């Protein structure tokens, strides 16, 4: 049978799987569904492992920046610390506030969690390693990542807590503001590639290192920096972590969540961070392109983790902005800069002054 999933690297595995399943007499459609399910499980586990790793990594980096050790006692340099955290969170009692909005309160973490994973359908992990290559891939990512804000707003509203509500409202305002500069800086890339497909974007940057979009002077670096700022805000990280500002709103939108539901928010936050970093790597740093002696997925992971590291460095260095300054920064600085940059890029593209 023809296998429609574009995971070419994993193709042998799926051919073997479909062969086995067909020998049991399953119909072609069932085989397809089961294959997708297996793929989903693989994806889910990979991402969960990455999220758990990121939590551990962040703790280690923060600790070493502060001349501490971080997790140390559980395994080599505390490597299974976050696994223990996850198991513990699963065991925790699920406290439900009596005055909650039942439906909204329940679904908020689920939506947040699912939305965080959805983006990976079109994420090019490596050469021929993508679940589905839509022709509107980047648009799809922008759409599904914005689901997060709905989840946060729902969490803030459903908890029936003033701090949570303030957190939810802040996050809505923040994401709405930062979506615009983010899209505007991505548009510069799309303008040049002429396609919204993730695979096209990556392949257009193949070859020489100066084909990477970040090196497209003069607008490339500007687009990258503005994207990174907007992405940091999108992922709710310091200096833009006002929805869960510990010192002001105690824990912000997730103040009333415990146990598994909190774990969902927690993991989703780190997966979101990974998503925006992966997007930065794909759009600006050439995605999985690189010398061929290292596998393409390793290039992708390396670049992504590089961006994640940068975001962590930023997080543990800077203070937090205030909510109105955040808006002002977005609307008065970031939006004009990104649009000017977009126009500049368009002019350069039209005039053909680029290589």
């Amino acid at each position, binding site marked *: 049978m023809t296998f429609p999933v574009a995971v070419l690297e994993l193709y042998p595995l799926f051919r073997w799987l479909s062969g086995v399943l067909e020998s049991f007499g399953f119909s072609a459609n069932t085989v397809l569904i089961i294959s997708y399910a297996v793929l989903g499980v693989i994806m889910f586990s990979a991402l969960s492992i990455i999220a758990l790793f990121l939590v551990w990594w962040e703790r280690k980096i923060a600790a070493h920046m502060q001349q*501490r050790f971080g997790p140390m006692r559980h395994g080599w340099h505390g490597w299974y610390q976050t696994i223990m955290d996850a198991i513990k969170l699963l065991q925790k009692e699920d406290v439900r506030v009596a005055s909650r909005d039942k439906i909204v309160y329940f679904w908020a973490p689920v939506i947040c969690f699912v939305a965080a994973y959805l983006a990976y359908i079109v994420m090019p992990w490596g050469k021929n390693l993508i679940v589905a290559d839509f022709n509107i891939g980047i648009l799809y990512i922008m759409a599904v990542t914005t689901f997060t804000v709905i989840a946060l707003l729902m969490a803030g509203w459903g908890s029936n807590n003033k701090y949570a509500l303030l957190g939810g409202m802040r996050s809505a305002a923040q994401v709405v503001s930062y979506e615009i500069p983010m899209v505007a800086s991505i548009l510069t890339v799309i303008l040049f590639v002429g396609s919204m497909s993730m695979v096209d974007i990556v392949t257009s940057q193949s070859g020489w290192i100066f084909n990477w979009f970040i090196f497209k002077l003069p607008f490339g670096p500007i687009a990258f920096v503005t994207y990174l700022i907007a992405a940091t805000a999108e992922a709710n990280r310091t200096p833009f972590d006002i929805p869960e500002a510990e*010192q002001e709103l105690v824990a912000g939108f997730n103040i009333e969540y415990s146990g598994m539901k909190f774990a969902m928010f927690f993991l989703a936050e780190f997966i979101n961070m990974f998503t925006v970093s992966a997007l930065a790597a794909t759009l600006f740093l050439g995605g999985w392109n690189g010398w061929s002696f290292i596998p393409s997925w390793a290039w992708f992971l390396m670049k992504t983790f590089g961006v994640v590291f940068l975001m962590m460095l930023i997080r543990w260095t800077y*203070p937090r902005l205030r909510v109105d300054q955040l808006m002002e920064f977005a609307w008065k600085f970031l939006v004009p800069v990104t649009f000017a940059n977009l126009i500049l890029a368009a002019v350069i593209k039209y005039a053909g002054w680029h290589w």
Partner: protein
Amino acid sequence: MSDLRTEEYYLNMGPHHPSTHGVCRMVLKMDGEKVKEIEPHIGYLHRSIEKICENRTYAQCIPILDRFEYVTAMSCNYVFALAAERLASIEVPERAEHIRVIMLELNRIASHLLFYGVTAMDIGALTPFLYGLRERESILDLFEMTCGQRLTYNYIRVGGVSRDLPNGFIPKCHEALNTIEKKLADYEGLLNENPIWLVRTVGIGVLPAKVALDYGVSGPCLRASGVQYDLRRNDPYSIYDRFEFDIPVRHNGDCYDRYLLRLDEIRQSIHIVRQALDALPEGDFKAKVSPNFKPPAGEVYARIENSRGELGVHVISDGTKKPLRVKTRGASYNHIAVLPAFATDVLLADLVAIFATMDVIMPEVDR
């Protein structure tokens, strides 16, 4: 736009809230994110220290007063010893006075380092908090070496200090001071010029000098508002008049000035400690004070400049070995009382910044 209506609501901040530095509770009348009115509620740490001191001898009061303002417990020890010495007209040996000055100033540095860290954390930067505490540890080491405790010292006694400086204190102290002086550059590099820090603190929570005086605000908060008033100069105690140091003054009275002023004070304190270490004479470290110390009847209000402002203690003696009344006055008491007078119409995040830069410590308020 005029038909858009907003509804005011009440937000309860504390007594358990990460940025109230302990157990202060503030009921905020909010309009969206804007704070319209503040009503502080205190007393969640009211431990009746004053009542306890009425039933303790003068020597026993000092460990109790350690817990009154634990971040600068040395100055609590000192102010009570000063009051008792003034009641009984005790002459303190030279060496003891020098040791006291060293300890008071080291404690001021420790307290300001804690302030630096906590303020940075309240404004959202976590790393400076750990840097501040890291250098504070080196001072705590000095204290532990001298008197055996990290926080509640019970070191300065009526008539002197409880023990002489240990061997090797002086080189170690110099080393710690050098490290802190070197690290101040790091602290400043992290925050002073940082645009995010600037927008969060410059022009936020301006405390006018007139309001400050009216509400009895003292110490760095008052000096940041442009009033040059430091008890080390204006009402000299101990041997501060022998040392050369500046009283840093700033004029805007906002969060940024309050923050910068404390960094300046760390430098001045380092300067004072160095002078005191150099001038340290030989001799007794304690005057002869009987264990059954009974000052003559009378009353005295002793006040000193500690890291938060005026720390005072009002002691009334009736001629017995226990004081008739001990009333303590902490600077933070007034610093919280003044909040409703100037910190209105700010955003919630600003209130946190203002609260942090007022450097409030709750047991001093609640006692």
